[in-house]
């Protein structure tokens, strides 16, 4: 058992868990869920917070982020077994996240809690949204929260599984195609240091289709540790497009674990954009291709600045034959920032006829920036097509001179080239308003004195 008494957050969560389990706050949950919380908590307590001695955290040293004290958001309400008090979202934060001229259903959360309102009209029939606070106490839905064993080796995911209280539960009924995208705006704001652990579950049933955009924004004086866990099931023939736009500000430590389970012939498209702001971002994105003939596309773009540490860990887990996966992550590293990309592709013995492609390209703008890129292929089937590539480069002086020789100023030329570098990823976005929004965010964040 690893004791980490020196870490205030460790003590806070251990004490928090004991209070929660001793209280009646979880008594309306199924016994399986309570058992799952217990298992997850024990896993977390055994492992503690990850250090660079853990292979998956080798390049991502979070020690400096663990020095502060945090209190657990919503713990008191969870202990009481009542819904967390609803806080009105800061309109300035919401405005930051809004995608201009995008026609969508807008759902705003404050520190992981949704007040039940939707802007942009009521959801179409067959698209159901509820709070996790309600869903976890519903015997029919409880099973969706009981899979904590899966997160055993993931420190933060285990912590979330032990202590989560709220988030969004989304269900799209079989055969339903949502007419407009859903936009989940996660706002985080606090005056005192806070640990927020949102848990989201999305179930996209047979032959349903939906596009979900998530934005993460923050404000306030206090520091916020967000430890999110999202579980997605994409059933047979269903199609999900999932876009994550992380634009939280400094003071935020964002750890997001997303597991997607794909059933037969399903399609999952993920776009993950991380922009300057949050000092720590760690995304774990796991695509588990549990049945045959699935298709998955993972696109990522990280533009990092300041002292930022942005780590994308992806796993594409080919379990069955005839599945296709395609992954492209691009990084632009400014100032003293650090980027980490770890792309694991696992092809099981059964997964013959797998097509798996992976590419990670990095543009290191400043000579004080760092990137660690690690493609990791483990292939146990013999009839597969898999490829991976990783590059790290700098601005091409020739390209820069060519643009300047046409009268384009150096800064504008660099901005053009960064946009061009990102283009391979941004052009894949199928919603034009989102593509424009992302390009504007990129342009906005290209500072004039970056090197």
């Amino acid at each position, binding site marked *: 058992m690893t004791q980490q008494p020196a870490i205030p957050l460790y003590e806070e969560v251990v004490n928090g868990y004991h209070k929660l389990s001793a209280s009646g706050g979880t008594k309306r949950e199924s016994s399986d869920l309570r058992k799952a919380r217990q298992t997850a908590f024990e896993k977390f307590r055994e492992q503690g917070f990850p250090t660079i001695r853990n292979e998956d955290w080798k390049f991502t040293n979070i020690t400096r982020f663990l020095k502060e004290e945090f209190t657990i958001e919503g713990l008191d309400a969870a202990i009481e077994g009542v819904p967390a008090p609803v806080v009105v979202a800061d309109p300035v934060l919401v405005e930051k996240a809004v995608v201009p001229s995008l026609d969508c259903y807008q759902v705003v959360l404050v520190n992981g809690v949704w007040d039940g309102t939707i802007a942009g009209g009521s959801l179409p029939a067959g698209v159901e949204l509820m709070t996790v606070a309600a869903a976890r106490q519903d015997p029919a839905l409880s099973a969706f929260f009981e899979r904590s064993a899966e997160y055993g080796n993931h420190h933060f995911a285990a912590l979330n599984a032990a202590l989560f209280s709220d988030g969004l539960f989304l269900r799209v009924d079989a055969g339903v195609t949502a007419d407009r995208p859903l936009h989940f705006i996660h706002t985080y704001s606090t005056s005192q240091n806070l640990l927020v652990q949102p848990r989201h579950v999305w179930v996209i049933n047979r032959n349903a289709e939906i596009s979900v955009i998530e934005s993460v924004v923050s404000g306030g004086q206090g520091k916020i540790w967000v430890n999110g866990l999202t579980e997605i099931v994409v059933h047979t023939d269903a199609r999900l497009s999932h876009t994550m736009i992380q634009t939280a500000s400094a003071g935020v430590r964002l750890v997001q674990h997303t597991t997607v389970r794909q059933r037969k012939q399903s399609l999952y498209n993920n776009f993950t954009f991380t922009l300057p702001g949050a000092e720590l971002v760690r995304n774990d994105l796991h695509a588990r291709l549990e049945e045959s003939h699935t298709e998955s596309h993972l696109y990522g773009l990280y533009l990092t600045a300041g002292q930022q540490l942005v780590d994308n860990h992806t796993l594409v887990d080919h379990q069955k034959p005839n599945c296709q996966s395609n992954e492209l992550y691009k990084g632009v590293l400014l100032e003293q920032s650090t980027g980490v990309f770890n792309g694991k592709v696992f092809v099981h013995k059964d997964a013959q006829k797998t097509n798996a492609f992976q590419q990670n390209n990095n543009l290191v703008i400043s000579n004080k920036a760092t990137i660690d890129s690690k493609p990791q292929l483990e292939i146990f089937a013999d009839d597969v097509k898999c490829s991976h590539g990783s590059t790290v480069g700098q601005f091409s002086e020739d390209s820069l*001179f060519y*643009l300047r020789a046409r009268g*384009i100023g150096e800064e504008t030329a660099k901005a053009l080239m960064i*946009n061009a570098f990102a283009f391979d990823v941004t052009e894949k976005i199928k919603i034009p308003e989102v593509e424009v929004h992302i390009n504007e965010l990129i342009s906005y964040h290209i500072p004039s004195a970056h090197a």
Partner: protein
Amino acid sequence: MLIIKNLHAEVEEKQILKGINLSVNAGEVHAIMGPNGSGKSSLASVLAGRENYQVTEGEVLFNGQNLLDMKPEVRAREGLFLAFQYPIEIPGVSNINFLKTALSEIRAHKNLPPMDAKEFLRLSREKQKLVEFDAQLVNRSLNEGFSGGEKKRNEIFQLAMLEPTLSILDETDSGLDIDALRIVSKGVNKLRSSNNAFIMITHYQRLLDYIVPDFVHVLYDGRIVKSGTKELALELEEKGYDWLKEEVHAKDAREKAAI
């Protein structure tokens, strides 16, 4: 328009230009010829402001201003244009956006209001026609996947769009077949006027059949060793460069002996 006085330049501490003198007036077309490695492209690079070249001596005045003090983008905005020998491919930057950005920065520099989208489109169509540039290429990524000839034509299209006063064509004819050469030359001839000037750097006399120069200069070992009219180009075509090289070496030897 352009006055080059005793220009010396080096790259990586190697002396490349060893005292160039040249004056170009509005309305003139100058051809600069010379064997490989004589410094032709280096001269173009120094004039355009490529940063790995160091000017060690001499000066260059462009419309009365010190050209060498200007950043590459300022030179372009002031009306200098270099058609690259090897145009760069930049995937993800669309040709048309690139030109729009360039034109708006040039106009801002000249205190002109930005061109509206409609006017820009009209101008772009007019110039495409003028230089016979394929409309489909205009919307593609800058030079990406273009053939050698398409890249060179794109240079001339950019030249037409940006309307510089002094254009330096760095071996624009190299890698062109006869048809492409004719199209490129036709474009340049249409753009010639009494207000602008051209410096054509070329290896072969061939280009000069299509674009007839007012002056021909021969560059050898970093200096202009002979200047003349278009007849000089014909003489070079016939006799090659060796006789000139010998002349230069003989002269150098005499000068050395005199010291």
